[in-house]
């Protein structure tokens, strides 16, 4: 009851004061102030209307789509470009690459080894080349399983060392001698393989030069990169080196050829005979 009376009194008081308050002259902002504010509102109106005009940009509406697509492209690009990622994933994309590219890569991997040891002197390299040359002549052709099928090639190596030790008296003795010869030949072949592997690892400057030259030619398509990727082209180059009387270069190149084109040492190869002749010619010098 008292509360209601208080409220009524307060309402009456409020009404009275409000009436009195609104009878007075109320302050108003100056005309300059009005103009300044309205001018600001007018100048900002264009910006306001522009900001609210039309729909948001397409990329904003499809932000998720675009960001997802960009992420997929990025990841795929990284995956393709990074071989380590491919190895981790167990996929070899290079299998699908053309043979020519594979050859380039194998050549690159071959050139890495000599380059890493190129600080050795040329004389040492040359001496090592001469030392290993004789053993590496027919290293690939004299593999144990091939040695039985091709005794003629073994004879080229063993003729001088075994020739006077084998008496040619009868067939049984000859057969025995041949079997011993073959056994020794197999042993020599194993040694020659080891020596050839060693030779391949040796920093031979000439060999490096040849390999660099070949690599440059491979990397430069205008100079016919495919030619050096075939045994025929390599053989032609070897012949050219011999014709130019660049014997040392030819020797180094021959070793490289045998590493890269072992099929030249196969009797079935059409260039086999010509290559053997050149090899004998070079090794005899």
């Amino acid at each position: 009851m008292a509360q209601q009376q208080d409220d009524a009194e307060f309402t009456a008081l409020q009404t009275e004061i409000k009436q009195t308050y609104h009878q007075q002259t109320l302050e108003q902002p100056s005309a300059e102030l009005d103009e300044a504010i309205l001018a600001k509102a007018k100048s900002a109106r264009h910006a306001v209307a522009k900001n609210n005009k039309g729909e948001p940009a397409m990329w904003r509406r499809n932000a998720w789509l675009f960001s997802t697509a960009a992420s997929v492209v990025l990841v795929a690009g990284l995956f393709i470009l990074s071989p380590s990622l491919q190895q981790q994933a167990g996929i070899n994309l290079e299998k699908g690459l053309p043979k020519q590219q594979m050859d380039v890569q194998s050549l690159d991997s071959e050139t890495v080894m000599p380059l890493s040891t190129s600080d050795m002197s040329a004389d040492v390299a040359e001496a090592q080349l001469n030392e290993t040359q004789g053993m590496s002549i027919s290293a690939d052709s004299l593999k144990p399983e091939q040695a039985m099928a091709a005794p003629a090639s073994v004879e080229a190596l063993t003729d001088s060392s075994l020739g006077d030790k084998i008496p040619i008296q009868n067939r049984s003795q000859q057969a025995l001698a041949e079997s011993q010869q073959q056994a020794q030949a197999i042993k020599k072949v194993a040694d020659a393989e080891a020596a050839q592997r060693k030779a391949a690892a040796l920093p031979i400057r000439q060999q490096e030069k040849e390999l660099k030259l070949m690599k440059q030619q491979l990397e430069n398509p205008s100079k016919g990169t495919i030619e050096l990727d075939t045994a025929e082209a390599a053989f032609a180059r070897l012949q050219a080196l011999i014709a130019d009387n660049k014997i040392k270069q030819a020797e180094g190149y021959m070793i490289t050829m045998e590493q890269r084109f072992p099929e030249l040492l196969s009797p079935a190869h059409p260039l086999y005979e010509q290559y053997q002749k050149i090899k004998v010619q070079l090794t005899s010098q």
Partner: protein
Amino acid sequence: MVSTLTQQKDAQPKDDNLVPQVGSDEQLMLNYQAGDITAFEALYRKHKGPLYRYFVRQIHDKQLAEDLYQDTWSKVINAAAQYQVKAKFTTWLYKIAHNLLIDHVRVVKPLDNINPLADEQQMDSLEADNLKAPEPQLQQQQQLNMMKSCIADLPAVQKEAFLLNIEMSMSAAMISDIANVTLEATKSRIRYAYQSIKQCIANKLQETS
């Protein structure tokens, strides 16, 4: 720090049930957002007086009051592009004003400690002195001047609540939302403000008689 806090307070209160009616302040603001400058002019005409007095009567430095008044409208204009009807326009407008007032005045000097306009008071009292033989019209003017003086003497929080109530007929709930105080505290402030003014006027009348 205070600015950051008050900027957060400036955020429009969430009231999704509010739908702007045709011709309402909110609709005018949306029209201005769409590029209609006449809508802003209408809005400005409607609110300029009360808002101006809100500052002028609380800050006795007229220049500062006008600056804050202009700042308030600038904030409204700048926020127009992002304006969404989440509360009554009046609540939003006076919340901006309230926060500006706190930022610029209370941090520097508590409003309660600000003395009322001495010159104006002197002028009022001179006028009152000259009116020794008051006629009814002059008596009314005298009362108005007394009221003005009494309002100026109110404590800051009461003055703010009183001005918002008497100028815009705002409810206690709206004022409590603007001033960020409880409803009960706001009701008390309004009640005390009116009672103080009545008492003040009575005292002044007694003094003059």
